[in-house]
């Protein structure tokens, strides 16, 4: 039921447009991620949903209920939206014990003492903090505080859970464990969740769907695979994962393949592109470093489409793979290989289906 509709949100701070016609819909039980660099408007969007910021225009609704509608001057105060929220700083109240932190939302709802107690203990079990009910926040680690914050956000069965960069204050090891744990909890509870992060790994590994934002505007909405493999534009390609960007000019079309003359080297790159796209002229192509194959230069079996000779500028060993900085003509590329390919000169193969067109004059 709690499908979240965000429609045409606009917010300006002075001269700057923080939100520019932001729209998306979150489905029931989905973990939906707002991803983007700092200042892209993702936190403003989340705080608008929570009711801590007032957009200038647009509409926000959860299920049947309209939270905000500029046209009809509707704005429900934050405390009546029944949302659970976990802040970046956790915001666990330092003068209350773990138990009191979780009991507060229930006391506000005038539950009977005994009812409060059973419910709080139940949720403390859920977030695996039952043993710490009498502790104060300063006696807890960062990870434990986060669990308390999550418990406090869940204890009153909110319609929607909002997570504002909840992992950014944890160290790397703990962060990965917390991610898995939160994702599992969310799936078990089937709780509609909006998650804000600037960390693409977090977004890719946890989300059902991602909206990539930049400069206050939505860049792309899609599943992690869609966003990673078929970035809608140059910004998405560069922000989500690492990418090689190659400028060129469309030369010809051969069935499902588009042939592009790479500007910085005298090579022709074949790209898989739907036939109905009227792409022509100058284009920018994108492919991931791990999508290519490297071979020794003397490997004569390696020939054909998109297989070129390249000069190695630098090689770095990164544990589970090697990273090569190479030049094809004067076109620099960053590529990865699981195996070490010796030599100053090697061969590189770029599969046509690994390339996507991220910008072009149509």
């Amino acid at each position, binding site marked *: 039921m709690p499908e979240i509709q965000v429609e045409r949100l606009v917010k300006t701070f002075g001269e700057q447009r923080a939100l520019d016609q932001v729209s998306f819909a979150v489905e029931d039980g989905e973990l939906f991620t707002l991803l983007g660099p700092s200042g892209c408007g993702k936190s403003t969007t989340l705080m608008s949903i929570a*009711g801590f910021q007032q957009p200038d225009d647009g509409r926000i609704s959860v299920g049947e209920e309209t939270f905000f509608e500029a046209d009809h001057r509707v704005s429900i105060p934050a405390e009546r939206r029944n*949302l659970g929220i976990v802040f970046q700083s956790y915001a666990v109240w330092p*003068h209350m014990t773990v138990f009191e932190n979780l009991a507060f939302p229930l006391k506000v*709802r005038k539950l009977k003492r005994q009812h409060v107690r059973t419910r709080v203990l139940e949720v403390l*079990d*859920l977030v695996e903090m039952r043993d710490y009910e009498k502790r104060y926040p300063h006696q807890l680690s960062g990870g434990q505080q986060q669990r308390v914050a999550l418990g406090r956000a869940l204890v009153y069965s909110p319609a929607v859970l909002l997570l504002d960069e909840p992992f950014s204050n944890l160290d790397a090891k703990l962060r990965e464990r917390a991610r898995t744990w939160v994702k599992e909890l969310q799936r078990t*509870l089937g709780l509609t969740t909006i998650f804000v992060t600037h960390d693409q790994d977090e977004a890719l590994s946890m989300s059902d769907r991602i909206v990539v934002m930049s400069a206050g505007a939505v860049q792309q909405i899609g599943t992690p695979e869609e966003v990673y493999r078929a970035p809608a534009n140059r910004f998405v390609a560069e922000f989500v994962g690492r990418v090689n960007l190659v400028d060129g000019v469309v030369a010809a079309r051969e069935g499902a393949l588009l042939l592009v003359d790479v500007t910085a080297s005298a090579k022709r790159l074949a790209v898989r592109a739907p036939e109905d796209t009227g792409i022509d002229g100058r284009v920018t192509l994108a492919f991931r470093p791990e999508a290519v194959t490297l071979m020794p230069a003397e490997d004569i079996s390696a020939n054909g489409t998109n297989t070129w000779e390249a000069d190695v500028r630098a090689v770095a060993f990164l544990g589970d793979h090697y990273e090569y900085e190479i030049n094809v003509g004067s076109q620099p590329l960053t590529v990865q290989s699981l195996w070490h390919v010796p030599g100053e000169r090697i061969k590189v193969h770029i599969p046509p289906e690994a390339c996507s067109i991220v910008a072009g004059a149509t």
Partner: protein
Amino acid sequence: MNTTASVAEAFPPPRRSWLPAGALQGATWLLVIALILGPFVPLLYASLRDRPLYEPGGVFTLDPYRELFGDAAFWHAWQNTLAFAALTTAIAVVFGAAFAILCARTDLPGRGAYSRLVLLPILLPSLGMVLGWVVIWGPGGYLTNFFSQRLHVGTLAIDTIPGMALVEGARLLPIAFLTCAAGLARTDSALEDAARSAGAPPLTVLRSVTIPMLRPALLNSATLIFTLAIAALGVPLLLGTSRNITFVSSYLYNLWTNASAPDPGSVSAGAMMLLVVATLLLLIRNRLLGAEARFVSVTGRVGRRELLGLRVWRWPLAACFAIYLVFTTVIPVLGLALMSVVTILTPLIAPWELFTWSNWQTLGDDVFRRSIENSALISVVGAVLATALVALATLVAHRSRFPLRRTLPVVLLYPRATPGIIIGIGFFWTFLVTGAIGDWFRGSIWGIMLAFCVRNLPFAYVVMYPTLARIGEELDRAGRAAGAGWWKTNRSIVLPLSRPALFASFVLMFVEILNDYDPAVFLVKPGTEVMGATMLSQFLQGMIGPVSALAMVQVAITVVVLAVGATIFKTRPLGGSDA
């Protein structure tokens, strides 16, 4: 992750507060505006009537202004006042800044203790301190006579304008010290280290880096000190009378009290003029500073600072510092103590031969006893009420979406630059024109309490605001998300977390109300005396002994309350503020 069924349990919606947040915020705003700006309306009105407001009839006239501006003595008083204020400012700012640099940036021995002790003059009762100066350094004062009669050397006559500037400068020096110390704490000493690495000797660093960076703090404190000096009443009344040096404040005081035919219209006109000058100075000060620079929070980088070595100057400078503290703080207080237990204080006869308890016994008498009781009562009640109001107002100003919230900080700080006598006269007229309620306030000590509270509200605000600013906004947002309304969130989360600031505010307000006097001189009646006003009137009647005893009571209560506050509540009033 075992139980899932009951997690979807449905709960009733959060109970709504019976009092809408908007109404509470609006009421707070209205109360603050009415208390602080309200009294100026009757004051302006009174200055434009041809007869006092307590007489029936009366028509609009500019006569009070015409009379006042036509009086040469009034302009002469302005000349004296401006000369005095300029000298006071120079003394306080130069020495305050120098002490701040010595304490914050050098290896001066005992700098930690010095930086606390130097604050004493602003915490001790100002009228009592002036009395101490009079007793010791005044014409016929103990050490004045001692120096001239025994050692045959003259001392600076403190009943002249430079002398009065010295007394007032010593009292206001802590303001410059605090502002500069806070400025130094905020600036990164790496800037100075960089200059030294570049080859600049310490004094060049001081001249070309440290002092230029202090410029905002210097301008800020100079404007505030100048404003406060213009309105000083105790100094001209206690020191200026003998040589007939009149300031604007004492001119108005005399016009109100002494003249055979009191002229409330002209006094109100003069008060309006002072108010305009003080307001202009406040506007200049706000222009000089960014809005936020007015508040100083002692957070930020706490690194070990590389200190500027004083080398051979270490001990001589420390000795100078000590001598300054002894002469301006310790000796006046000791003088008061001595004065309170002798019949007369003179270097010609050993004090123990003149020993008497009679001054202290006089404190048991009517006026004195009532003053002490009244002061203690209004200090406790006033400190509680003012702290509560300022806490609420600070929440509205910084933790709400109330449309007019941005006006509150400006208004809350306004009384800091408003001369106490203006507040006194303003409340006098206010009580007069507000019927039965005003009559009740006018006839009881609560009217004086109200004036003292309003006068000192800025102190509560500068203590409260930095603490509130440090409480992360996410903490109360979490409360709102959990379903608590504005008031419930603040009562359960924000206020409990700002408890140290609430205590500090209470302690500071208690001390300030206890020691305040100038708004009261226009409001006291038989039965509603308070310590400061009694000291002033009794001193002018020549009762120096009992007045000294009363001042000692003030000093003692102040010291005890500050000490208890500091140890029990671990609060340090003025610890993080620029006064």
